[in-house]
């Protein structure tokens, strides 16, 4: 084939160029992480890499990840099963209650946990119960599990909804009991949904910084924070970031390998028959109690704690800071959301309309920005900017750019699904009516993507509003967002002062969750 023929098959440059730019923007800083790590001499590098402490940190991280996965499975699966397979009344409310914990970020939960226990805590002052302040492994496990189980719930629910009920009926007709059907037919088919939930949660645990730092549990991310914060030795920080990155890549590859042979499990898109619901009978009271208990721990208790501390009286100065923090958060998050959507559009377009190896790789870069532990990503941006474009170091611009690359994947989801619903021929139809290729896209496809783009922008905006680790490293001095204030006040046990910031974050997070919920709910109604 002539080269010119090959070029014709490429997407138009105005889609291709931004996609390539994103690929470079994500990878290049990560390369600088390596450059920085190898800064010292070889002997020193080896010493830094093979420290015994690294092994302890790695084991701690893995222990926390495993624990969180077990707890979230036990929390997420009952929610998914109840809302998709049973005759329980109030599925809509239960689904919402299963998603709502996402509104309370891990570090706010950690703050709540710290505020509950101890002599002055909520429990002792309101209920007269004195409990030791939860911290360390169990504290981190509780906070992160309660925050992240909705991811597993949503994935499992989607999986259960997508199963073809006739396979279960076939199994019953072949003589299996209902428990055997669950074990031999349903669960194996749920593997892909389970793995993708596991992936999101593992990546979150590995990258979490807020909860582990407040509850003082030494994971790799926590160690990276300590190293960055207290020591001047950035080389060791770079090494920890590289270990984190390796761990992330290992998980991504493992997930890919596990899913590879399983794709045939996915149910077809044809009209499937209605699932027959399991009648719960008196068991429903147990189900309601379970939902109630989880809701109490994940939502009500933290909320009471925040309100309790707020009622203790807040320094009036704090209200002034609150106004500035909200402004700062919006100033950084809003442009990041627009930029992320701007990047997501060409990437999604190329991956849906020009599927090929190249577009597949480009798309993976978008997810790499999301999967990279945020502290490592932020550190990479610091090294990169200091070396290549020093004038953007310590600017809001760099923060906005890092946000947009990190949350790009969140914008891509809705844009991609909107694109899949848009008939590809309408652009050619517009062209045959005398409109240029670019204008054909603008006049026909773009209006149909509006809903998806708005959803993408909202997701990124609301996620950036509560983002902590990247903000912590990249925010210019004196630029304090809501998340930073919750974290720093709780870190100093100033729970009353942290409360107004926590409440403000909850306000934005609840909008995020309601948006997510309405999109999830619409899928099946």
């Amino acid at each position, binding site marked *: 084939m002539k080269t010119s023929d090959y070029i014709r098959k490429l997407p138009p440059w105005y889609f291709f160029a931004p996609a390539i730019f994103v690929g470079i923007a994500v990878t290049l800083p990560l390369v600088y992480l390596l450059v920085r790590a190898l800064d010292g001499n070889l002997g020193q590098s080896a010493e830094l890499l093979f420290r015994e402490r690294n092994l302890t940190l790695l084991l701690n991280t893995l222990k926390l990840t495993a624990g969180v996965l077990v707890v979230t499975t036990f929390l997420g699966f009952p929610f998914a099963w109840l809302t998709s397979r049973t005759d329980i009344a109030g599925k809509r409310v239960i689904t919402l209650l299963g998603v709502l914990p996402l509104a309370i970020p891990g570090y706010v939960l950690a703050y709540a946990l710290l505020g509950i226990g101890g002599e002055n805590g909520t429990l002792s002052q309101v209920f007269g119960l004195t409990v030791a302040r939860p911290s360390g492994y169990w504290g981190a496990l509780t906070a992160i599990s309660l925050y992240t189980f909705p991811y597993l719930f949503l994935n499992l629910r989607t999986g259960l909804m997508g199963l073809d009920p006739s396979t279960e009926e076939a199994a019953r007709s072949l003589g299996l009991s209902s428990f055997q059907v669950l074990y031999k037919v349903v669960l194996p088919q749920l593997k892909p949904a389970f793995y993708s939930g596991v992936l999101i949660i593992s990546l979150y645990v590995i990258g979490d910084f807020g909860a582990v730092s407040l509850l003082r549990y030494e994971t790799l991310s926590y160690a990276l924070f300590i190293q960055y914060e207290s020591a001047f030795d950035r080389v060791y920080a770079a090494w920890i970031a590289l270990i984190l990155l390796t761990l992330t890549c290992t998980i991504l590859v493992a997930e890919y390998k596990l899913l590879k042979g399983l794709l045939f499990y996915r149910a077809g898109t044809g009209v499937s028959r209605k699932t027959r619901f399991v009648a719960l009978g008196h068991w429903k009271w147990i189900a309601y109690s379970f939902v109630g208990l989880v809701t109490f721990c994940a939502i009500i208790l933290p909320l009471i704690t925040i309100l309790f501390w707020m009622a203790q009286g807040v320094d009036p100065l704090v209200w002034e800071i609150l106004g500035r923090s909200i402004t700062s958060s919006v100033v950084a998050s809003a442009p990041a959301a627009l930029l992320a959507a701007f990047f997501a559009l060409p990437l999604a377009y190329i991956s849906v309309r020009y599927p090929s190896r190249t577009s597949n790789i480009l798309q993976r870069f978008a997810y790499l920005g999301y999967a990279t532990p945020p502290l490592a990503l932020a550190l990479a941006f610091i090294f990169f900017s200091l070396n290549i474009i020093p004038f953007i170091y310590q600017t809001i611009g760099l923060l906005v750019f890092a946000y947009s690359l990190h949350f790009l994947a969140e914008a891509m989801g809705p844009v991609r699904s909107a694109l899949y619903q848009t008939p590809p021929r309408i652009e050619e139809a517009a062209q*045959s*009516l005398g409109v240029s290729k670019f204008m054909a896209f603008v006049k026909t496809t773009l209006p149909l993507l509006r809903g998806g783009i708005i959803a993408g922008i909202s997701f990124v905006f609301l996620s950036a509003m509560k983002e902590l680790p990247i903000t912590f490293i990249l925010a210019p001095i004196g630029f304090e967002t809501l998340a930073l204030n919750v974290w720093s006040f709780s870190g100093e046990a100033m729970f009353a002062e942290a409360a107004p910031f926590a409440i403000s974050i909850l306000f934005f997070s609840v909008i995020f969750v309601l948006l997510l919920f309405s999109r999830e709910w619409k899928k099946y109604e």
Partner: protein
Amino acid sequence: MNELLTATNLTKRFKPEEHPVVDKVCFGVKEQEIFAILGPSGCGKTTTLRIIAGFERTDDGSIQLNSKTLECPYTHIPPEKRGIGFVFQDYALFPHLSVLENVKFGIRNAGGSEREFRALKMLDLIGMKSLRSRKPHELSGGQQQRVALARALAPKPSLLLMDEPFSNLDAVLRNSTRNEVRKILKDAKMSAILVTHDQEEALSVADRIGVMNNGKIVQIGTPEDVYYRPKTRFVAQFLGKTNFFAAQATGLEARSEIGYLMLDKPARGDVMISIRPEHLTLERATPANCSGTCGIISSKEFKGHDITYHIKLPTGECIVHTDNRMPFGIGENVVVRPLEPAVVLKQDS
């Protein structure tokens, strides 16, 4: 009449190592002519149409419209500058625009009221003026089809391309829409290329047909031409039921399994001939007329206005359509008689 569009040697390979999807395709379309490209699925007909529209590029050859080159390996006029309308198989109506806005979309170089007026006139022509503010999803399949046609015709293209335009309609609707579309095109004095795999559609709508197979145009002619005088075995078979016989030709006459018959053109030696079932008739076999060429009726299908007989011959079989006044029974001995000269076929290339 003048040739409007000339396609010369169009060739397209999607993968360098594979057989070309479109292989040296040549044909012309005259002014106000409806030309059909007929072929089985995967024969390259849609790709040919997309090359003419400018959605795909040709590897070789050229396309001229009104003696202006639109496409060759060194020239590519983009689709929007060709002035060629396209009706898509799935219609590709803009889902976010109303019927009127869809039709207005392509009308340019005119003021707002002028565009509106022209679009309404177009909708009037297809009898859908009253549904102008509906959205595409609120229309039936046949209505969507007509809107797609109106939208493509509204900018007054010099040529209209239609990709399987009737395949998404149910059988009853297909027949009426077909006649309606032909009438609209003829009233608008529009030239059109229609791509289809349905021989009945091509025969009834088109003025001329190009039969395509394996990326090549095998025969071009009027519907009567390609039906009655197919050049190859493929064309004969693709356009309807037919009988093939091996025969020994001696000029305008040949000897075959059903006896001596006339040929449409002189030939010598071993040839393959085709004769349509309706060009054969049956006679009861008697010792006088049966000189070693009689057959036995193996089955029959009574269809009301006519009857189809399957005849077992000494070494093969054949199909005969007769009118319903010839009641033969299964197992009866009959003699097959040709009513028309048989067609001598070329070897399939």
